[in-house]
């Protein structure tokens, strides 16, 4: 058993929030550079060049690369040998978010009630997901999720008869309907299987994988590749201005499902493909 005081997560989360919002990883800037090289539209080439310049400027000057610093999605992978002490864990997570958004001059984009809509002023509460894993470590991942792309997400409760064709049709439909709104070039996170809620969570988790990395299952890896090629034939282009690079990647995460079900969740992510991770 490893005892950890919950307050230990506060400075870690504070730092991860700032890092995720200010620093695009080389995996993302490489993908944007590659997109610029492949893009056929001169206007989209110019936009991609500007996004690269912006990423470098933000990182050098410790500024958020996009003003929508999102709702803070926090994934906690907690080793089952960890025994927590101190303040409630969720309070500590929210305190870390509060400090990160204050000290990083990040935007506070959360309202307290979906209908009454008063800004909470500190970007809390975070969207917290917990997974219990073997071992005595805690891995914390922060994903600041902007609303332009989140709003374009979709859920389809397909049936087994819809099959892989139904999946392809729905994904293309969601991407085309979204057009320029989610700030393409996008990463498409797909959750396939499970129940409605499981599919939705998997589609979010799919947005943590590196651009260019494929699902280990060959049939899903092939589907990712095929969807990526089809999406890039839509002509939407960077910011929907018309071009040949609409998506940087497609990631599918799948899970077992019911004999009557084929849930499909599609979570879109803008070109600011931000996340940061640390282990304590």
């Amino acid at each position: 058993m490893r005892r950890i005081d919950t307050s230990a997560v506060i400075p870690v989360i504070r730092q991860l929030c700032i890092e995720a919002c200010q620093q695009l990883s080389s995996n993302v800037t490489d993908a944007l550079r590659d997109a610029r090289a492949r893009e056929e539209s001169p206007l989209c080439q110019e936009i991609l060049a500007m996004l690269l310049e912006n990423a470098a400027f933000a990182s050098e000057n410790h500024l958020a690369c996009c003003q929508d610093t999102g709702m803070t999605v926090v994934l906690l992978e907690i080793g089952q040998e960890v025994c927590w002490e101190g303040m409630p864990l969720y309070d500590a997570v929210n305190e870390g978010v509060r400090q990160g958004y204050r000290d990083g001059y990040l935007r506070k984009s959360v309202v307290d009630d979906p209908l009454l809509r008063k800004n909470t002023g500190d970007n809390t509460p975070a969207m917290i997901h917990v997974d219990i894993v073997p071992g005595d470590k805690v891995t914390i991942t922060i994903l600041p999720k902007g609303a332009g792309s989140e709003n374009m997400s979709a859920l389809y409760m397909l049936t087994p008869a819809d099959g892989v064709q139904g999946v392809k049709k729905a994904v293309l439909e969601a991407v085309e309907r979204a057009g320029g709104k989610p700030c393409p070039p996008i990463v498409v996170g797909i959750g396939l299987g499970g129940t409605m809620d499981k599919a939705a969570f998997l589609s979010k988790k799919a947005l943590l994988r590196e651009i260019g990395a494929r699902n280990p299952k060959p049939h899903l890896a092939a589907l990712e590749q095929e969807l990526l090629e089809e999406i890039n034939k839509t002509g939407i282009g960077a910011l929907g201005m018309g071009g040949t690079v609409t998506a940087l990647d497609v990631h599918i995460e799948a899970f077992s499902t019911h004999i009557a079900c084929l849930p499909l969740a599609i979570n879109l992510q803008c070109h600011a493909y931000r996340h940061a991770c640390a282990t304590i």
Partner: protein
Amino acid sequence: MKVTLPLTREVLESVQIGDVLELTGDIYTARDAAHARLYEAICKGEKLPLDLKGKIIFYCGPCPAGPGRVIGPLGPTTSARMDPYMEAMFQQGMVAAIGKGDRAPYVAELCKKYKGLYLLGVGGAAALCANAVKEVEEIAYPDLGTESIKRYYVEDFKVIVGIDTQGRTIQEENIPKYRKR
């Protein structure tokens, strides 16, 4: 093309989709919550906290300013959410809106009817975008935080004409050129 604000009728009606404009002058931020309040005031016939005549509205909620900066990173938000307010804003005298993404087809009709423009900012180039803002003044609704109405004095603020006064739309004309399915 360099443009000094306010926009003249001549500039408004001569620019076309795809034209890149570098704006110098005052623009005013308003997004979801500020639009909801303005619209409520318009419906009740109340006096608005700013005269919209000849103004450019920027759909934007900035990050707070860090030390030594007038404003934090900022950029356009998705315009489609403001579609339902567009006609009322034009009727109040707004001449152009800056945002990102495509809009409902009726917005193009409104641009034609009221001889107004929809301008596209570069979504997600927020750190660079903030450099163009030289002066910031809060005009109304300070309780809305990032969503309050602010005046920005901008220099060479780059935007692309998305819908022109003939009702032409950049996405509608450009996307089919690159479509391969």
